[in-house]
């Protein structure tokens, strides 16, 4: 489960941040918690709409991708701090990422009220029609006299308090599932797989389907090549040097822009076959051309997820390469500095050599796998006897139990969806 934790204070030394970090560190088995700060969020002003600015779009994307949100609020003047209120106002003005989102409210404060009034205000705020979050009822967690609450290692001193927090968090995880059941499915906009649109970088008047699209398009825009310098972020290379670098990557890279046009791959012309089956004549194609008809539904689903910001990366294991490879296609969304979707980078990699190398270096083996993880396990089973070192074997088991099912889960959810 993926959660984001919003720290409602913009001061550097915040006990609510400390509380959020504590939750993140102690609950790795329950959820992944990414902590978000409100520091860069400007004060809301309806006459100066900054919804499209980077910090607000970043928040929007992170919240949309999360299964639930934890908000830790301090109390200023009997209410929530202005910077937290400001963030919520931005997120209820032109965009509504908190709509139907399960939310847990917690708070820490200097004095014995423990942010009780701020939490009540925040509940009412989250219920407002423009916000429309689903706040978990009851289970009020107030961390009072916060200066004394944590020890020097950032641990909560009082055992009863930390136990109550754990109970609350476990309930919230269940609440997230319950709240999901309430949600009306919202269809995402259709994807234009024919790339009929025109974005600023689309090269006009060249047939996208032409086998020599690259040559024609390069002529059209007078694309630089060879030893011409290009300034990058961060560095300067010639076009040749960029090619050397990209060709040496241990994975195949593919660039499809936000108009769904296939613009680039890094395998080089000479290479006979690639894992992803790219051909030089495909470059320039609309995405509909480079996929078989039966795959188009999945292609569209992946693009919808990435464009809408539902997920940043979608991984799919493609098993057709046989047992000696474990080939993973990762569809990674790309964004500009204003957090706008600019296209996807599909990188394809056989991860088996990496896993083998890791196991060899750390003298570990994969053991104790379940059937769902058999694909990974069987690919890397070793003939060596199991190490009799208790510590090592314990950590190996742990490795297999925690990371591989998560991966298998990600693959399953990515490929099962229509």
């Amino acid at each position, binding site marked *: 489960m993926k959660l984001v934790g919003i720290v409602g204070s*913009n*001061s550097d030394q915040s006990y609510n941040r400390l509380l959020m970090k504590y939750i993140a560190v102690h609950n790795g088995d329950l959820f992944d918690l990414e902590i978000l700060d409100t520091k860069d969020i*400007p*004060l*809301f*002003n*309806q*006459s100066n709409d900054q919804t499209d600015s980077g910090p607000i779009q970043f928040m929007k994307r992170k919240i949309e991708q999360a299964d639930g949100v934890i908000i830790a609020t301090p109390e*200023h*003047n*009997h*209410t*929530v*701090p*202005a*910077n937290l*209120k*400001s963030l*919520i*106002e931005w997120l*209820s003005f032109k965009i509504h990422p908190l709509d139907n989102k399960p939310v847990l409210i917690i708070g820490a404060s*200097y*004095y014995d009220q423990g942010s009780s*009034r701020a939490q009540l*205000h925040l509940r*009412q*705020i989250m*219920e*407002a029609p*423009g*916000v429309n979050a689903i706040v978990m009822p009851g289970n009020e967690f107030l961390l009072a006299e916060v*200066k004394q609450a944590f020890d020097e290692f950032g641990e909560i001193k009082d055992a009863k308090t930390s136990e109550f927090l754990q109970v609350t968090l476990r309930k919230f995880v269940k609440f997230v599932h319950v709240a999901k059941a309430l949600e009306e499915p919202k269809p995402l906009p259709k994807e234009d797989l024919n790339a009929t649109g025109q974005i600023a970088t689309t090269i006009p008047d060249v047939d996208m389907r032409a086998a020599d699209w690259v040559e024609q398009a390069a002529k059209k825009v007078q694309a630089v090549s060879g030893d011409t310098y290009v300034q990058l972020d961060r560095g300067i290379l010639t076009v040749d040097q960029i090619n050397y670098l990209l060709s040496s990557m241990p994975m195949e890279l593919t660039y499809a822009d936000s108009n769904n046009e296939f613009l680039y791959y890094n395998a080089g012309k000479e290479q006979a076959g690639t894992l992803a089956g790219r051909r030089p004549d495909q470059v320039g194609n609309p995405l509909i051309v480079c996929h078989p008809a039966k795959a188009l539904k999945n292609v569209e689903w992946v693009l919808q997820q990435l464009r809408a910001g539902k997920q940043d990366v979608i991984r799919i294991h493609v098993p057709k390469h046989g047992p000696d490879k474990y080939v993973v296609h990762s569809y990674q969304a790309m964004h500009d500095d204003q957090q706008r979707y600019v296209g996807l980078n599909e990188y394809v990699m056989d991860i088996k050599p990496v896993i083998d190398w890791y196991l060899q270096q750390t003298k570990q083996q994969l053991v104790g796998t379940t059937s769902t993880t058999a694909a990974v396990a069987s690919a890397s089973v070793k003939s060596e006897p199991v190490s009799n070192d208790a510590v090592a074997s314990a950590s190996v088991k742990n490795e297999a139990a925690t990371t591989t099912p998560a991966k298998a889960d990600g693959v399953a959810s990515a490929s099962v969806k229509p």
Partner: protein
Amino acid sequence: MENFVAIVGTNSVASTNRQLLQFMQRHFADQAKIELIEIADLPMFDKPADKKLPPLVQTIDAKIMASDGVIISTPEYDHSVPASLSNALAWFSYGEHPFVDKPVMITGASYGSLGSSRAQSHLRQILDAPELRARIMPSSEFLLGHSLTAFDEQGNLKDQQQVAKLAGLFADFLDFVKLTNQLVHTKKINQQEVQNFSWDKI
């Protein structure tokens, strides 16, 4: 004649709360001098460690301090006061404490029918906070619903019943100011407490 400051509770360029305060300024000109205060140019509150306040905050603090009373007109954003008003009040209660024992009248206007009722009740709680300690006029809600159509071209309130209600509340407020000035028993303690108050000491 009493001197009041009236805080426009939003940083928006277009605001019916500003319109309402401008109307009050004109309509009650024979009873009190009302100066409108804008909060749009205040920076985001960041608790400056050295307690050095931005010049604009110092200016407004001084105006509130010198006034006989404060009128705050608030819109309602997400069931509460706008972040910009909350931000302003954070500044007006940090370092200096101009609201302590200051008579305050709350009004509010909203586009919908509820007239910022929930924001007003939050604002009352906020003004009761230890570093604000205002004297809020009790039992005196003025809710202006459907505020976009509430004013005529001259900026006057169209509904005469509303005008009469506002006039009654304003007359009450003038009395409330006098009354508050007689509530001297806790004044010294309030001043002392707020000077000594620090979240870090609790």
